[in-house]
C-alpha cells in the first residue's frame, strides 16, 4: 500500500516552504476565496461535515469544537498547538518544517470560523529550527497581505504570533498551554469552563493541533464530501503517522486512516530490524496502552479500531518494541518521562508517577516482590481520572497495560533478582 499524500504533497520540493513555492503549488488560493467570498458559518459547516477529528491526541471533532465558541462581537482567540512532545510523535515537526504556509493558511481560514482576531502558534522551544522556518513564513505572509489588517481587502484582521515554549511536555495540554501563553508556569486549569468558552485572556479560544489545522485549506477547497472519500466513516481523511523504534525505515508516512496496521509497520516502515521480531507496539504515542503483535497488527489503523482494542490512536505515533526489548525496562522509561514532566499540581499524578518509577526501578533491579506488581497496578487505577489533566493517566494507561499483558516478564525480572540474592 503506497502512501496517500495530501498534507505531505509536494514536500519533496524544498521551495515549498517559501511563499512563492507554496503558491506555485496552488497555495493561498483557498484563503483568498474564503476571505473574499465565504461566511464563518459556511466554513464551520464544511469543517463539521468533513468529520475531521483532532490530530493532537483526543480525536474530537474539529468542526464541533469550533462551533462551541459563542457568537457575537468579542475578543476571541485561536491557538495552534505545536508543542508536540509526546514520546514517539514527530509528525508536526515534519509538517512545519516542510510546509509552514499550509499551516498558516489553515490558521487564517479557521480564524474566520472561530471569529478570532488573534492567533498564536505555541511551538515547543526545542523545535528552534522549525520555529525559525515559521517565523520566516509568517513574515512573508504578512508582507503578502495574508495576515495583518484588512486581509485581501476583506476588512478582516488577523494577527499571528509564533510563540516559543521553553521545554515542558505539560504545555501540550491545552489549558496548560494557555497558562504558558499568558506568561505563567504551565499548569493545567480546572475544566469546565472549557477554552471554547473561557480560554486565553478569559476569551473564547479555539485550540487545534498543527496537523488538524493543516487539513483545513484542502477541506474548504474541495469540500467535506471529498475529504470523506479518504479514510473510514468514523475516521475520515489521511493521517501522518510517525513510526519509530525497532523498524528498518523509521519516519513519517501519510496514509488513509483505516489501512491495516501491519502495512504501516511492515510495508512502509520496513518491519523489524534484521533477525528481530515484533513483540509489542504503542499504537498512538507513549500514552497509549501497548498492543501485542497478535492483538494489534491486523487491526485497521483508525480511531475506532484502536479504541475498541482498548488502546487509542492518540497522536498517531507507532513505537515498535522488538523481541530484544525488555518490557519492564520500557515501562520504566515510560514512567520516568511522565514523572519528569508532571507539573506537580495534582497529588495523584505528582506522587503516583514518583512511586511508580521507584517501584519499577525495584523491579528491574530484582528487588521487588510479586506483590509489588499488584501495588503498581493499583497506583495506576488511583491516578486515572483523578487529576485536572490526563498527564498522569497517560502514564497509568501504558504501564498498567504492560504489567497486565507481560506479567511473566515482570515476574521473571523479580525472580532473577531473588535468585541472585540467595546465591549471594
Amino acid at each position: 500500500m503506497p502512501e496517500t499524500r495530501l498534507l505531505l504533497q509536494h514536500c519533496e520540493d524544498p521551495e515549498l516552504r517559501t511563499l512563492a513555492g507554496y503558491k506555485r503549488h496552488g497555495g493561498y488560493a483557498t484563503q483568498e476565496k474564503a476571505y473574499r467570498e465565504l461566511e464563518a458559518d459556511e466554513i464551520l459547516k464544511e469543517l463539521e461535515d468533513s468529520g475531521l477529528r483532532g490530530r493532537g491526541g483526543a480525536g474530537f471533532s474539529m468542526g464541533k469544537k469550533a462551533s462551541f465558541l459563542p457568537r457575537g462581537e468579542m475578543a476571541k482567540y485561536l491557538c495552534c498547538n505545536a508543542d508536540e512532545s509526546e514520546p514517539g510523535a514527530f509528525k508536526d515537526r515534519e509538517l512545519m518544517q516542510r510546509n509552514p504556509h499550509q499551516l498558516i493558511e489553515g490558521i487564517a481560514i479557521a480564524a474566520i470560523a472561530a471569529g478570532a482576531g488573534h492567533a498564536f502558534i505555541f511551538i515547543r522551544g526545542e523545535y528552534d529550527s522549525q520555529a525559525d522556518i515559521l517565523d520566516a513564513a509568517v513574515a512573508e505572509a504578512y508582507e503578502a497581505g495574508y495576515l495583518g489588517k484588512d486581509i485581501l481587502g476583506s476588512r478582516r484582521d488577523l494577527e499571528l504570533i509564533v510563540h516559543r515554549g521553553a521545554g515542558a511536555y505539560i504545555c501540550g495540554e491545552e489549558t496548560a498551554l494557555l497558562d504558558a501563553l499568558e506568561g505563567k508556569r504551565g499548569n493545567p486549569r480546572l475544566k469546565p469552563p472549557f477554552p471554547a468558552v473561557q480560554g486565553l485572556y478569559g476569551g473564547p479560544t479555539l485550540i487545534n493541533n498543527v496537523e488538524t489545522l493543516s487539513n483545513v485549506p484542502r477541506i474548504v477547497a474541495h469540500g467535506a464530501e471529498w475529504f470523506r472519500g479518504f479514510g473510514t466513516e468514523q475516521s475520515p481523511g489521511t493521517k501522518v503517522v510517525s513510526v519509530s523504534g525497532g523498524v528498518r525505515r523509521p519516519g513519517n508516512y501519510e496514509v488513509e486512516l483505516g489501512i491495516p496496521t501491519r502495512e504501516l509497520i511492515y510495508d512502509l516502515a520496513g518491519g523489524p530490524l534484521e533477525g528481530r521480531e515484533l513483540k509489542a507496539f504503542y499504537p498512538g504515542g507513549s500514552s497509549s496502552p501497548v498492543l501485542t503483535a497478535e492483538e494489534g497488527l491486523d487491526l485497521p489503523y483508525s480511531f475506532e479500531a484502536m479504541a475498541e482494542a482498548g488502546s487509542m490512536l492518540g497522536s498517531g505515533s507507532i513505537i515498535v518494541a522488538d523481541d530484544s526489548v525488555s518490557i519492564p525496562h520500557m515501562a520504566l522509561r515510560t514512567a520516568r518521562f511522565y514523572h519528569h514532566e508532571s507539573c506537580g499540581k495534582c497529588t495523584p499524578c505528582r506522587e503516583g508517577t514518583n512511586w511508580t518509577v521507584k517501584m519499577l526501578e525495584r523491579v528491574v533491579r530484582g528487588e521487588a516482590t510479586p506483590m509489588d506488581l499488584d501495588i503498581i497496578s493499583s497506583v495506576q487505577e488511583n491516578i486515572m481520572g483523578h487529576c485536572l489533566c490526563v498527564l498522569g493517566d497517560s502514564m497509568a494507561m501504558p504501564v498498567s497495560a504492560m504489567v497486565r499483558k507481560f506479567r511473566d516478564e515482570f515476574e521473571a525480572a523479580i525472580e532473577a533478582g531473588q535468585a541472585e540474592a540467595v546465591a549471594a
Partner: protein
Amino acid sequence: MPDRAPEGVPELHEVDCPLELREQIETLMGRYPDRHSVSIPALWAVQRLYGWCTPAGIRQAAAVMRVTPAYLESVASFYDLLHTEPVGSHKVAVCTNISCWMRGGDELLDAFRAATAGADDVLVTGFECLGACDIAPMASIDERYFGPLEASDAAAAIEQLLAGGEVLPEKALETRPLAGDANA
C-alpha cells in the same frame, strides 16, 4: 519575621538594563494583548544575552515588564530550557526516551559525556523526547538536530563544535528526505 519585605517591581533606573534588551522586550510587549505573555520570550532574550537567566538579567526584564523578579524566577524555574544557573556556551541534549533508548541513546549520552570530560564550556544532558524518533538515536546540538548518531560521532561533533566549525553536516535533520522518498 523576614528582615525585609519581598522585592517589589524594580524601577528601570535601578537595574541598568541594556538598551538592546529593553527594546526587544518592549517590542514583544506591543505585540501581545497582555504584557504578561512575554515572560517566556523575555527570558529567552535574557538567556541569549547573558548565556543563562542571571538574577540581574531577570531583574532587568522584570523592570521592563513591570512585574516582580520573583514572578519571572518562578517561570524560569519551571521550564527545562531556561537555565537559572550558569551553563556552558554550548548545549548538547541527548534524547534518552523510548525510541532513542531502543536504538542506543544511553550509549550515545555516555559517549558525549566522555567526549566533553574537562570541557566546562559544553553542557551535556540526557533529555526527554525531542520529537525526532525518526533519526534515533539523536542529539540536539546548540538547538539543531542530528541523527541517527553512532557513539563514535560524539567525539567528532564535540571537536567540530569547539573548533567553531560546522557540526556533522551529513547528519543534520534538515538534509533528510521524507522517509517514504529515501529509498525511492
